């Protein structure tokens, strides 16, 4: 019997939680606000789900839902990365 793809996805998920745990503890507390801004931006990769809904030729309610979701996710992607960049640019070292 073959392994259900769900099990592979679950494996990826569990391992990624561990990766997240160790990566996030290594983030300096001084950068916790940029961390939140960038996690916001990257979690908007949910836009791929919206692209699939809005992508087909045929018109449907799903297409409209996908369009709105794409727009919201795009606000977040652009906004998240731009504001992170803006904050990080302000963190200057004493030795300029």
């Amino acid at each position, binding site marked *: 019997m073959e392994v259900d793809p769900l099990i592979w996805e679950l494996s990826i*998920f569990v391992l990624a939680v561990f990766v997240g745990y160790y990566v*996030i503890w290594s983030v300096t507390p001084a950068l916790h606000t940029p961390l939140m801004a960038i*996690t916001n*931006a990257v979690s908007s990769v949910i836009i791929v789900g919206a692209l699939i809904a809005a*992508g*087909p030729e045929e018109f449907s309610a799903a297409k409209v839902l996908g369009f709105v979701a*794409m727009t919201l*996710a795009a606000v977040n992607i652009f906004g998240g990365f731009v504001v*992170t960049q803006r904050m990080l640019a302000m963190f200057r070292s*004493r030795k300029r």
Partner: protein
Amino acid sequence: MSPNLTALAYLAASVLFILALRGLSSPAAARRGNLMGIGGMAIAIATTVVNPDIVSYGWIAAALAIGGVIGTVVARRIEMTAMPQLIAGFHSLVGMAAVLVASAALNHPSTYGIVDAAGLIRFPSRIEMSLGVIVGAITFSGSIVAFAKLQGLMSGDPVMLPGRHVINIVLALAIVVLMVMFVGNPDPNLFWVFTALAFVIGVLLIIPIGGADMPVVISMLNSYSGWAAAGIGFTLENSALIVTGALVGSSGAILSYVMVKAMNRSFLSVILGGFGGDAGPAAKGKNDRPVKSGSAEDAAFVLKNAASVIIVPGYGMAVAQAQHALAETADKLKEMGIRVRYAIHPVAGRMPGHMNVLLAEADVPYEDVVELEEINADFADTDAVIVIGANDVTNPAAKKDPKSPIFGMPILEVERAKTVLFIKRSLAPGYAGIDNDLFYAENTMMLFADAKKMMQDIAKEL
């Protein structure tokens, strides 16, 4: 692109996202990390768009253009003091996007390839999309409430509905029962009802939480937005989305833990709510204790004669917009050869790391900004401490008085310095609503004034 190539591209995007977060271990590496995040996102979007089923390029371009312009303009204009609201707003968008994608999948499952032999939505997909939509809906409405509280659109005071625990438990049970029914029989009406209930419970969960606990709330909602994304990732069988959701989910959970520990609260007590509104209640009696108060001139004299100074900023400093005047004073002191550092309590701002951003904006070099654990031992050898816009985080009662509501909370031990200059408008208590013994200490000089005005006056006197 072959399915294998597509999967590899999503893997590359996932790796770039991990590296983007890893970059935040230092400010220098972080800028490169942000670029990696952008690269990962570009790969993920491009990989999806080249799929032959996706042909509505006009729609996609329009959505990206509209969203892109709005996001960029908002991100460029936002004040750094308003960062917590912006982040709460962003969380709500992730939550709503998850709800919309799950709804689209329900409406048109064949697009997502999640139809079984009987023409119904596949069994595992029913579970995944239900979890994604529930967490997404809670994230959305909860973040909207958090946004409204932070933006001052509604009071930061806890809203305590009578019987709210019973209401929440009944709602939660109803959601679970409806979801189980939907998993058994994918009737869209069940889906809509539990989604609506999830929106309601999102509001009810956040309204009883007071302004003082907002750093925890924002972090928790950050975590929820990640879990919602991961749930949708399972539905789409998309590894990049699953990995990102897991990363963001654990990131928010860790930040919540850091905040909860920094306030010595428990998750349960935060979630149950009722703690800390906009301002503490009026001081309870005993305000006839003598305090030593001073002027800007007195403060400047103390500072000039110090060899080392530590500044303890709190959110009140940001409210008074005093950070620039403060940085100016610090620069003058440094020119005199005095060692100046800033001590940051983890909950000094309205969200994790907020104070560091506000100081960075005022051009304070990040090496001068030190976290609580690293600087606490140094207060004893410090000549002067300036407390500006902070209160509870310096209250010695947290160490000494087991009856105090903040007992056990880690504090900045400023009372051990030779002189404490405490800038405050009045003797009113902080969020926790308790008196601060530090006001009446032998080595404390109270500077009663608006923080910005006082810093400008001190700078003039130097």
